[in-house]
């Protein structure tokens, strides 16, 4: 009797697991003629793809647009992005619009296989059918590229795609965006984009051990590709408070005089947003300003004090009593105390978020590798110092910068961060702006 109950339970469980894990294939289509898509729709799709930052993962540096193959390091192994050009064999040329929409909404490919959540469908599930249609039209009118992505390199059991069904049961909340009628239309538009296509939380929200965003800590800061994605809520480490105007110009121009420049993986985001109409970027800024929230009055006072101090900043006499101060005086002050406007001048370091961040990772990256100018952009530039500073000297400089330019307590473990930054250093004098051909240390992108 008990045996048959157990057997029935086992069968029932298997059936349920199968029902959750199994999705049917959607019939392959003959690639649609490019002329079958309306120009207006394609154009809207282009802007949406820029907001979605699709090229960051789906286009190799100096590779063909959207041909995939970009290695994304995760704690579970390396996932290679797929080819989303309309190539019939290696791309998504045989995907119907319904298949594309299902991938965005449910994280399942045309053949019915679960997609790894490296593809952020936990956000894309919020994208409207209308926007999916425009994205589909845009992608289907790109140049087809014949390029098969390399096989993922994941350790057992993470290489078993049916497991993703379990992950989805635990963590995938569909359609988490609901308009808030008490807020403005612009705020709601921004919320729709940020929580959906723009998937800001994919980097800026911390993840749990299974690589899912922690719902209890939205926008509290995360790690991505050996960079720190700062908290962009009330816990932001920025010395000066963000508001909608500052966010708008930062997201469109790539810098703001009170906050500095967007580099690391954020450089690609702002490069993409620079091609989007001002309306959507302003909506994103409006919504994010409310996510940053209204800070406590002492925080506001500190921020105003920083601004009051740096605005009329004259060259301070350099203190040469420590190694860090001497390095700063000769290597940094020429630009960072020049008073020249961004992006070509250096920001006053009292305004630097990297120096006020909870850890020195981004600062170490920038000092070692510098910031290379990007062709065709009004972009910042800074030489890297990997060749001239050893780890001790770099640590001395970082500690000095923290002590002098931040009101936060001293960092601990600076030497370890410096050594790790050196080990995973990007090509000298290059930024991490564009996706790299070779995987960085497969350590930090906390997602399977």
């Amino acid at each position, binding site marked *: 009797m008990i045996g048959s109950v157990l057997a029935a339970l086992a069968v029932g469980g298997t059936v349920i697991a199968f029902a959750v894990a199994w999705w049917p294939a959607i019939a392959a289509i003959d690639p649609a003629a490019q002329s079958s898509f309306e120009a207006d729709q394609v154009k809207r799709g282009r802007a949406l793809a820029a907001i979605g930052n699709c090229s960051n993962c789906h286009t190799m540096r100096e590779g063909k647009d959207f041909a995939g193959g970009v290695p994304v390091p995760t704690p579970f192994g390396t996932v290679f992005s797929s080819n989303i050009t309309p190539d019939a064999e290696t791309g998504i040329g045989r995907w119907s619009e319904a298949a594309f929409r299902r991938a965005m909404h449910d994280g399942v490919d045309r053949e019915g296989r679960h997609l790894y959540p490296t593809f952020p469908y936990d956000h894309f599930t919020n994208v409207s059918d209308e926007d999916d249609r425009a994205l589909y039209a845009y992608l289907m009118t790109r140049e087809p590229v014949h390029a098969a992505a390399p096989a993922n390199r994941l350790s057992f059991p993470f290489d078993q795609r049916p497991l993703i069904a379990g992950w989805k049961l635990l963590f995938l909340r569909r359609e988490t965006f609901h308009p808030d009628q008490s807020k403005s239309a612009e705020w709601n538009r921004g919320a729709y984009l940020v929580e959906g296509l723009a998937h800001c939380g994919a980097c800026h929200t911390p993840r749990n051990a299974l690589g899912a965003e922690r719902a209890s800590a939205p926008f509290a800061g995360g790690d991505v590709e050996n960079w720190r994605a700062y908290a962009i809520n009330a816990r932001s480490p920025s010395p000066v408070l963000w508001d909608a105007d500052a966010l708008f110009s930062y997201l469109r121009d790539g810098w703001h005089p009170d906050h500095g420049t967007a580099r690391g993986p954020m450089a690609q985001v702002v490069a993409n947003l620079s091609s989007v109409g001002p309306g959507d970027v302003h909506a994103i800024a409006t919504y994010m300003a409310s996510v940053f929230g209204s800070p406590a009055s002492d925080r506001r006072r500190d921020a105003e004090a920083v601004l009051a101090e740096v605005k009329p900043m004259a060259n301070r006499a*350099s203190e*040469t009593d420590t*190694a860090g*101060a*001497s*390095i700063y*005086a*000769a*290597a940094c002050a*020429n*630009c960072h105390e020049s008073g020249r406007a961004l992006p070509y001048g250096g920001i006053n370091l009292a305004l630097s978020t990297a120096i006020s961040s909870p850890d020195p990772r981004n600062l170490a990256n920038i000092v070692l590798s510098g910031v*290379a100018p990007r062709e065709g952009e009004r972009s910042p*530039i*800074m*030489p890297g*110092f*990997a*060749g*001239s*500073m*050893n780890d001790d*000297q770099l640590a001395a400089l970082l500690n000095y910068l923290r002590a002098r330019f931040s009101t936060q307590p001293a960092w601990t473990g600076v030497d370890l961060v410096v050594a790790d930054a050196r080990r995973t250093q990007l*090509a000298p*004098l290059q930024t991490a702006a564009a996706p790299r051909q070779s995987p960085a240390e497969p350590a930090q992108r906390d997602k399977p």
Partner: protein
Amino acid sequence: MITVKVNGRDHQIDAEPDTPLLYVLRDDLALNAAKFGCGLGQCGACTVIVDGKAVFSCVTPLLLLEGKQVTTLEGLGTIADPAPIQRAFMDEQAAQCGYCVAGMMMRAQALLMRNASPSDEEIRNELEPHLCRCGTHMRILRAIRRAAGLMNRADLSPESGAVR
């Protein structure tokens, strides 16, 4: 007093620890190959080699150089006996005003010491931090390829052009 090893010789320098290496080279040691261009590490004219790596001497303070080997263009060759990289630049006439080429040669030298046969793309990427306002880029590329050829001959190893 700080001791700095330049082109194989120790020099006692009486200067503040935050003095840029470029000023020491030009003002104290009379080594004038490295040029002051922008003073901000953005043009490359001041480039020298420190422990095998190309660095901007204008933003490298003296105190970082304790125990390191600095090589300037003067350390590669002489007028009578130019190093391969210098001979190649002369053969290709890879200069117009010439202000940038000392820095260009130093970074090219550092590249060739590390990679004896760089591709065109590798040369272009490596030289990206260097500005030339005269437009001699194509000649500079040819000169670096020629230097690689000279260095790869048995009688002229890359090391022969390094520190003397």
